Structure formats: C-alpha cells, structure tokens
C-alpha cells in the first residue's frame, strides 16, 4: 500500500527540504498512522501535523481528520484551514 504525503513549505525544515513523501502505512491506515510514521522519519514533524486543522485526502478537505481512513494510492495534504465568515 502506498500513500503520497505532500509537506507544505513550512514543514520542509523537518524533512531536509523533501516536499513529497511516499509511505507504506499498511491496511487500515488512518491519518494518525501517517503522522506517526512521518514523525519517526522526520522527528518533530508530528506536532505541527497534529495541529493542522484539516487534511485533504484525494482532494477532499476534512476537518478533525486524525482518525480518517486513507485508501491505497491516496494523495494527502495537511492544511491549516481558516474559519470562514
């Protein structure tokens, strides 16, 4: 199983400039598992990822998405979405 995670510019300090990261989170993957794997690979990145208010999975933006499942082949973006008016 492969998932592609895109890291925003502000997070690339943790990843030595790497913008796109491929992970193999295994079956039943959730956003939480991706964060844990990323934190193991890039220590310290977990906290800002957990603080990201939303996550886009294959283009769908989801708030409070820690336990959201991530399908095989998904493209994942962590976003700091702002409240509307």
């Amino acid at each position, binding site marked *: 199983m492969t998932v592609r995670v895109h890291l925003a*510019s502000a997070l690339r300090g943790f990843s030595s400039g790497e913008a796109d990261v491929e992970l193999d989170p295994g079956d039943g993957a959730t956003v939480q598992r991706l964060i844990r794997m990323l934190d193991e690979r890039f220590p310290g990145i977990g906290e800002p990822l957990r603080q990201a208010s939303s996550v886009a999975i294959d283009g769908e933006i989801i708030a409070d998405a820690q336990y959201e499942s991530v399908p095989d082949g998904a493209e994942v973006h962590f976003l700091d979405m702002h*409240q509307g008016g």
Partner: protein
Amino acid sequence: MTVTEDNPNTGYKWVGTHQIRPDGLDKVTGKARFGADLVLPGMLHGRVLRSPHAHARIVSIDTSDAEAMEGVRAVITGADFPDLVEAGRSTADIAVAANAMARDKVLYEGHPVAAVAATTRELAAAAVKAIKVTYEVLGHVLTVDEAMADGAPLLHDGMITNGVDPKPETPSNVAAKTTFERGDLDKGFAEADMVVEREFTTKPVHQGYIEPHAAVADCGQDGRATLWCSSQGHFAMRAYACTVLGWDTGRLKVIPAEIGGGFGGKTVIYLEPLAVRLSQKAGRPVKLVMDRDEVFRATGPTSGSRMKVKMGMTNEGRITAAQVWLAFEAGAFPGSPVGAASMCALACYDLENFLIEGYDVVVNKPRVAAYRAPGAPISAFAVESVVDELAKGIGMDPIDVRLANAAKEGTQAPYGPKMPRVGLIETLEAIKNHPNYQAELGPNQGRGVACGFWFNAGMNSSATVHVNEDGTVTVVTGSPDIGGSRQSMALMAAETLGIAYDRIRPVVADTETVGFNDVTGGSRVTLATGAAVVESCEKVIESLRERAAKTWDCEVDEVEWVDGQAQRSDGSQPPLSLGDLASKAGRTGGPISANASLNARGVGAGYSTQMADIEVDPETGVSRIVRYTTAQDAGRAISPQYVEGQFQGGVAQGIGWALNEEYVHGTDGRMQNQSFLDYRIPVASDLPMIDTVIVEVPNPAHPYGVRGVGEVGIVPPMAAVANAINGAIGVRMEALPMSPPSILAAVNDQS
C-alpha cells in the same frame, strides 16, 4: 437567471422553488426579537469603559467612586476574570480573554478596561466615567509597515515569528509567515512575453452589520447562567464565554436571538462574558448593548494590507509564473486571514510556477474578525488587477485570458490538493454570454472583470426532526439563520419527506435543546446542517416505513415512501399519509422523531466571476456603477431568492470596500470615523440593480448538490471595479478605497 449543468430540469418539487420566508412576517412586522430587544424583570444596564489609547500599560484602576454611586450594582475589571496565562491555557484562549477585557496592557483604542452594571443605562455611563485608570502610554504601530520596521514598539513582548526556518531569536510584531510554492519561478518568468509587477494597499474595513452587538445575561444563585445574544453561533459563544469566565461549558445556556447581520463579525465574543460576570456579581440580569462607535472601535474589522504581485504571461495568454507577497494587519492579536488569502490568491488558476508568502502582523488596532471569505477579497484585488493589466497588455479579452488558465477538476490547487469538480469555467462563460458583456459603453465608462475563489466549509452540525401528531414537521437545528438557512432547511426537508413546504416549521434552538453546531460561517450551513437535516429526514422515513409495515402486517421492504406517503409495493392497500401515521404513532412505537449529528464531508468550493461597468467623472473623481453582473456557482440553489440575495449582498459590500470604506486613524492611534456618517457604506441609491446568474454545477458529494454561497461573492468586486476604472480613465488604482479624492489624485498624477 440560472445556468444549470446538464439537466435544467432537476425533477425536484421543492428544492429550487420560491417560497415565503419562515422569518419574513416577524421581521417586517417588528415582532422578531433581536439581541437588544429582550427585557427581563429587574434587569440592569451595563456599559463598558474602553481604552482611549492605542497602546498603554495599565498602571492602576480605581473603581471606588463608581462603586459608591447610587444605583450602581456591579463593577468589573480584568481582575474579575481568571488569568489564563497563569492557568497555562493556549495562546488562542489567552487572546480571546485578553481581547474581551484587558489585564495588564491595552492594545488598541476601544479595548475594554472595565464594565459597570447599574439601574439605568445613563447611570452606568456616568459610573464608567467615574472609574479612574492610570496608564503608561506606549508607542504604537498602526500599519504593517510601521509594525515590521526595525525598532518598532512590540505589542507582545515574547512573540517569535512562526513558520520561519531557522526560528528567529528576537521577538517582533510578525506572528507568522506562510509560504506556498511550486515549480521554478525564474524559468517561469523567463518564458513570459510580458511581466507586470505592482504593489497594492488596502485599509481595514468593517463588516458593517446594522445590528450592534448585544447580550443579556441572567446568572442564578446556583451559579448557572442563561445568556441571550445575537451571534453567528451560540455554541461558540458559550465556549468562548466559558473560557473567559473559567467555567465548565454546562454552566451556561445560550439562547440565540434573531441576528441583524454578521458577515463573519459575529463569530467571536465581546460583551457576552462581561454580561455574565456583571450579572453574577450584581445578582440580577444585565443587558449590554454597544453603540455604533463601540462597534467600530472594538469589533471586527478585516485586515488592512500591503501586497506585492508579479506575474508573467505569454502572448497566447498563458500565465507562466506568479509571485505574491502579502502582509496583513491582524489587529491587536495574531490571527489575520493572511493564510486564507495566500491559499486563495491564485486558486482561480492552473499554474506551474509560483511563490506565495504571507505575513501575519499585529498592530494597535482592534483584533480582526472574519469577514465573508476572510482574506480572499484582499489578495484577489491585487492578483486580479495584475491579470487584467496583463490581458490588456497582450490585447486579449479578459475572460479569454482567465479561461486559458482556469482551474478545473484535477487542477493541483496552489494550496496543495487536486481540485474536485468546480465551476469556475462555467461562471466565466456565463459572464461572457451575458447580454451585459456586449452592452455599449458611454464616455468615461469602463468595463472590468474579475473572478474569485473560496473554499466553503463543512464542520460539525446537528439536527432533529419531529413529526407532530397531525403530520406537520418541526426541523430543529442550532445554526443561527443569517442568510436564509431556515428556508433552505425547510425546503430540503420538504423535498426529502415529500410533503409541502408549508407543513414544515424550521426552528433555531438553544444550546440545551439541540446537539452541537459550529458557527454559521464558511458558507457551511446549507451544506453541513442541511446534510444533518436530510439524514434526520431519511431516518424518519425509515421509521415511517416500519410503522406502515406494522400497520399492514407486511415486511418493510414491501413498503415504499413516495410523495409523502407510505405505499404498499403491490398496491394492495390504500396509501398511508404522514398525517395518518403520525396520528397513530402511539400504536406503532411512540412519537416519530430522529436526529443526526455529523462532521460534514464533501465540501464543494465556490467560484464567482463578476463584471462591473463604471463611469468616472475625471473632473471630480466620482465614480458611478452603471451596470453590475455576477455569476456564481451555487452547486444547487436550494432557495434561489436567498441565493440571489447572497450574491447581491456580497457585491454591495464589495463595492463599498472598493469605493469608500476605510478605517481612518489619526497619528494618535484613535479612529476618526466612528459612525456611519463618516464611514460610508453603500446605500440603495449608490447601486444599480445587481444582475445575477446562478450557475449550478452540483456538488457531487451533497444529496442536493449544495456548495454554499455566502462568501465568494465578495471576492471579485474590488478588482472588477478597479479594472473598470482603469478601462474608463486609464489609471491603475493600487490602493483601496478608490474614493473620489484618490481617483482624482491618480488622474492628476497621470496627467
């Protein structure tokens, strides 16, 4: 006018129809109760003492004279609230509390310092004047330029900029930097046949809701309180107020009043915790109502800004590179909408090479609050002005240029993910095909086009649907109705249940009567709360089918729900209507009711394209809107009247922002135009009929295709107006507002 994708005949009976507004009669007869209308027995009246200084340290507060006045029942200061810094609360919570009532420092003129409850409003005002505050006045900063300058006075001593690598070692007024980038900027600019680079500024503008903030609190001897207030989210008011008070959420019940406009500015608290604490201290109900000058000095507005935009284009109209630099005023606490502005700035386009940098900068002005598509209109003013200049420079139609670069399904958005199905192209084509686009222009008239993007939102919503004994239905939600949501809820419930719209009563309930709802904001209610209503109705239908099966002694799958009645699939029984089943509900399992709570999915982004025809008098600089046309993708217009109203309202506010509105501050840091006489919002005579085109590219993820319509309509107007002014008299306006003196100055500079 409505343009619908593929199938203009939706097959819906109620969705998309024009109906009488559920709240209409109460509002036109004066019966509707707004925030300030509530009167309780024994109620006291409160007033707030506000800082006269833009930046000062509070040395001492002496309330003894005020407390000694006859009729004064309570006086409060920052010391009457818990210290959230000591309590180790989050930066966001600390800012909410410090903005509601200053503790050690005042950070803007109008910052609350103390509050009084007395038997009359006049007495409360006199008592406020009797409070003696000693200030140590500090230097202030009013603009991003002043705040970012070396050696600028600091609002928050320890604030280190987030989002910068390596992390700065010294504090500054820059709270955060956001960056979005892709591709190779140098390569992109090298491929361009034309490059335009400009700098823009905008001033803070207020949401301009007609109803000032108001709150009534009644604290009981059991330590619990009830709060009535006009807001965009009474659950959020409860949470914020309890944070400031140091209370558990369950101690406070919030009852929503009708709301006289919010536009984002009523998603935050100001008076609410003060009213509760005053009531608690006085042992009587307390009402606090702001005057208009307080609304201007201490609530809202949205950010002022400085922006730099550089874009390159080929002679064929392809944008090859874009560089956007944004610095937004956050007001007294971090949290400007520069992040959203950065994400939206280039979201109309499919770009390979770009760099967007945004800076969140604190200044000594009121803390900014959300305002319709927060941040997006500001960056759109700059970006869409440059796109217009490029289009004119290469001699290409401004809509064709935008079509050549338009974001569509599959486009990698500048903020990251791929776009789902979106309707920008359809809005561009709707304007291009509109008769107004071919209308002849007169002398000194120009035509301007601009487009805009807003995410829209989902978030948390709850709804309960009750079937009454006679088959009428009550739809209960907790989303304050600021844009017609009660009608939208009723229409979707009617469509789902298959009963008449007028058999449904939509209600907005208090925090103890319905499940949690996030604020009415982000254009989210029709989508998210609507989804909860539809899900509740579907559960009701399941229950009705089961009850019909019991009645007929058959299996549930032999019962269908069609046109508001249960039908036996084989036609062997006469149908059972909702009324039939409701009247005998006790025999089939008890009252019929269902609820749904959800974190909404399937948010569909919104796009708008707008066209302004403007006439400018080159002698005076006065501009007149000749024609205005807006096309916006609604996904599906559940209530077309309200949808048109939202389109027109966004444009009207945008025209005010474009031409007249601005906060004017003196060098002393005090706002100089604190009334609607001096802060000029558009009135009916300023505007022509705003022509609307409802484009419907249904959101595939919503049961009725809803996207949300409340915000994106305010994104394009400033750029559309600026581009029209450029067409009329040839000057490129780089600063908002484009008021007569500034247009005249630009004309004189040009000549």
